[in-house]
């Protein structure tokens, strides 16, 4: 029993009659996170499903030496025999692997909690985390593009962008469409460089894109190349490893879980198309419950001979 002498002060009464804090409303604000889905807009295209194939590796065949890539030969005489032409064929490979995410809580926490963040609530976030995983792996894939077109000793500028556009246009068969995925600061450096160009106006759609689609990762379009940005882009040796490619140059494959069979004992769910399997486990012995998300996915780059792709490696400016 505490004695509260007059005048009764809050500082004295808080321990017995008050409370040290109170939550203002029931809402829980989510901390900022990049909610940019790279499976949209051709940044990553779905190549296929390896479920039921007997392998974790898929191949994509390519061929050339006919059609637009070859021409008829001149014949010297009316009766010269035509020599049959060879064609060339090759393939690209894609390997899928297992990724996982799980949440777990004790019975005590589940019983006493006054907030909505239960393991069931967290399970609903698996798809977002999966898409964030794809984005992260895309950034890893971009870092391994082999041909750099930018000046690695300086921050990204208009000259780099002209060089990029030239590189695409100098690629035989380039169809005119390309996307870029950069580190956000690379976009900032490019924007600054655009401002410094004499007589060059900001790209017309710049402002509109900024306002309408910033949550979708799209920052602006310049020289006909849509520019997206992600913090997942790799930084190493003082350089940012962004990239640009035509839609279809980077693809993904999954092991769709529809063939997994009966998982009702785990109160399981399958997210069709993405290969995500969600299972639940309740353990009375340790008084815990958990939810697990498993998925099989993989990304690859298609040969530049099919889909041009360029590294945009710049000094990080730091």
């Amino acid at each position, binding site marked *: 029993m505490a004695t509260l002498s007059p005048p009764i002060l809050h500082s004295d009464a808080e321990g017995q009659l008050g409370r040290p804090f109170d939550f203002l409303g029931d809402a829980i604000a989510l901390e900022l996170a990049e909610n940019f889905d790279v499976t949209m807009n051709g940044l990553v295209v779905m190549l296929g499903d390896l479920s039921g194939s007997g392998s*974790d*590796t898929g191949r994509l065949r390519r061929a050339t030496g006919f059609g637009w890539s070859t021409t008829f030969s001149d014949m010297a005489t009316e009766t010269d025999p035509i020599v049959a032409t060879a064609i060339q064929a090759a393939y690209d*490979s894609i*390997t*899928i*692997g*297992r*990724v996982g995410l799980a949440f777990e809580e004790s019975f005590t926490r589940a019983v006493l909690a006054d907030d909505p963040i239960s393991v069931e609530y967290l399970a609903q976030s698996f798809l977002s985390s999966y898409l964030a995983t794809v984005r*992260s*792996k895309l950034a*890893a*894939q971009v*870092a*391994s593009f*082999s*041909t*750099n*077109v*930018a*000046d*690695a*000793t*300086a921050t990204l500028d208009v*000259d780099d962008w*002209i*060089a990029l556009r030239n590189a695409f246009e100098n690629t035989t068969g380039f169809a005119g469409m390309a996307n870029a995925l950069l580190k956000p600061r690379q976009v900032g450096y490019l924007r600054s460089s655009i401002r410094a*160009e*004499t*007589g*060059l106006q900001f790209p017309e759609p710049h402002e509109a894109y900024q306002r309408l689609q910033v949550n979708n990762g799209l920052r602006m379009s310049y020289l006909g190349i849509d520019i997206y940005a992600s*913090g997942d882009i*790799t*930084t*190493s*040796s*003082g350089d940012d*490893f962004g990239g640009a490619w035509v839609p279809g140059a980077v693809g993904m494959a999954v092991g769709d879980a529809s063939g997994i069979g009966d998982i009702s004992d785990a109160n399981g769910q399958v997210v069709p198309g993405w290969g995500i399997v969600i299972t639940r486990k309740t353990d009375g012995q340790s008084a815990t419950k958990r939810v697990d998300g498993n998925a099989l*996915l*993989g*990304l*690859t780059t298609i040969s530049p001979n099919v889909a041009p792709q360029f*590294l945009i*490696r710049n000094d*990080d400016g*730091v």
Partner: protein
Amino acid sequence: MPAPTAQVQSAGETLSEIDGANVLRVAPNAPFWLVHWRNAPGSWEPAEIDGQSYWLPVLSPFILTVGVNGFRTAASGEDPSSRVSRSKVVLTDRGGELLDVSLPVPAEFVPPGQAVGPGFLRSAPCRGGKFYHIVWDVPRQPLAGREMTPEHYRDLFNRWRRWLVEEGHIAPPDPQVLEDAISNASRRVHDVASASMTDESSVREQRRAKPARREALHLAAVVPGADPAPAPPSRPRGKKAAEVAA
């Protein structure tokens, strides 16, 4: 409440391991190899070391994360090295030259405060795992609300890259790659000059200075370990050469 320091030390731990003071406030990343894309345009770059410009191999991270670059999930009990076997095939097929992760980094190239040991890859504890980095990217705590930017020891990294070529760990470049790089550097000087036609002359010169310095660095560069007086690389020809000269 953290355990008292005396107890922590008696348990063979340090206080920083308990309170997390030395844990980087960044998300974990995947380990990686360093790859040189042999003969790819942009695979060599000039850099100045002790007043001399050298052609140095560009090294890119080849990130080993499941499902990317052929890196796969191993079966239970399977030799872990099998996870990278396809990655090596992918890399070779695409013209990549893998740097052995156990390749020594001589002490003279190791940044101050970093342990001298085998390989160029290091890891630091971070939130939820490990943060992998090359020895020349020394991680540090990020500023509030900012991305972590490692302190990069560019000069030491350049010297190590020069050593890689001198010691034969990376083969000398194809002259075509160097010619391509020089041509690009020269074109940038020309492009800036063209774009600045309406500028005051002083502004024009200022804008040309940076690409001109870059071009000079390209033109003066020598291949490490090669003849100190190499044949001059090919210059832009015809109209373009005249424009560059102007």
